[in-house]
């Protein structure tokens, strides 16, 4: 267990191990995304109330779900980086922040585009939407905080603390549609109980959520590999690897 933990803490080990599977992960994620998109756009039935505009759900919900889950991953990386001063954890935190920001942006923009034909407005200062906007600012804040420090260790510490403090926002986002009167519709899929959706609609949705998770893992790995290579560019193993290519 501890040797495994030490290995995971070694940037070199992670880099070399991920070389073998990163492209496969990417290929799988992109294929599933394509299948899910075609399924959701062309094959799923239309919604009896919202017509075809509801098809935005197949990108909106997965992006939002993974943006939230990604924040937990980032906060856990922050905790590990604070407690064990593990360098890979700090790099993982940074790697989650950019893709997390991208997915939150996607959730907000697709939500706005969905809102126009459904609610008649692009934007409302609604609890769910506002708390998602705060999530975007948290992700962007972490990226900005990395730039603000000269010293890498202080940056790691500050970002880990911000990531941990920001987790307060996550349950608020989850519960916002229940706690406040909201334009945003309540969750259609829940961990407990059956989804309030037709199987022909939730099957492509589940596929898309899974594909977005894989895509998140793929981009975090890409970011992490780029970060490791840059930080270790003067080390022997990087020189040897580049020379051998």
């Amino acid at each position: 267990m501890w040797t495994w933990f030490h290995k995971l803490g070694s940037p070199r080990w992670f880099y070399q191990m991920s070389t073998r599977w990163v492209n496969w992960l990417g290929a799988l994620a992109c294929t599933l995304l394509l299948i899910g998109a075609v399924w959701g756009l062309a094959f799923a039935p239309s919604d009896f109330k919202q017509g075809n505009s509801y098809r935005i759900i197949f990108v909106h919900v997965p992006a939002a779900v993974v943006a939230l889950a990604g924040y937990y991953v980032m906060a856990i990386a922050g905790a590990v980086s604070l407690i064990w001063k593990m360098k890979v954890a700090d790099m993982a935190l940074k790697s989650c922040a950019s893709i997390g920001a991208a997915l939150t942006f996607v959730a907000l923009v697709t939500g706005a585009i969905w809102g126009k034909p459904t609610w008649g407005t692009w934007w409302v200062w609604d609890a769910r939407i506002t708390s998602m906007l705060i999530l975007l600012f948290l992700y962007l804040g972490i990226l900005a905080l990395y730039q603000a420090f000269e010293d890498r260790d202080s940056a790691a510490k500050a970002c880990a603390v911000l990531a941990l403090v920001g987790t307060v926002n996550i349950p608020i986002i989850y519960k916002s549609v229940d706690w406040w009167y909201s334009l945003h519709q309540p969750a259609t899929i829940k961990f407990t109980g059956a989804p309030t959706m037709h199987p022909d609609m939730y099957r492509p949705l589940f596929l898309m959520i899974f594909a977005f998770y894989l895509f998140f893992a793929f981009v975090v790995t890409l970011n992490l590999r780029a970060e490791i290579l840059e930080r270790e560019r003067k080390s022997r193993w990087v020189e040897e690897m580049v020379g051998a290519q």
Partner: protein
Amino acid sequence: MTMYFGSLAELWAMDGHGAFVWSAYFIVAMTLVLAMYLPIARHRQTVGQVRRRVQRESITASSTS
């Protein structure tokens, strides 16, 4: 499995919601491609830098010896 829409034109129009649905999917696709491209470009750039430095150093090492 059959397509929900009768024709590709209907798929494109989506009963008047086409502009919303397709622009949303387009923005998602662009964002995801960018998210994928940026770390790949950064990785490639670092590899290039290291390669040039290693070559430079091997040239100076061989000329001084």
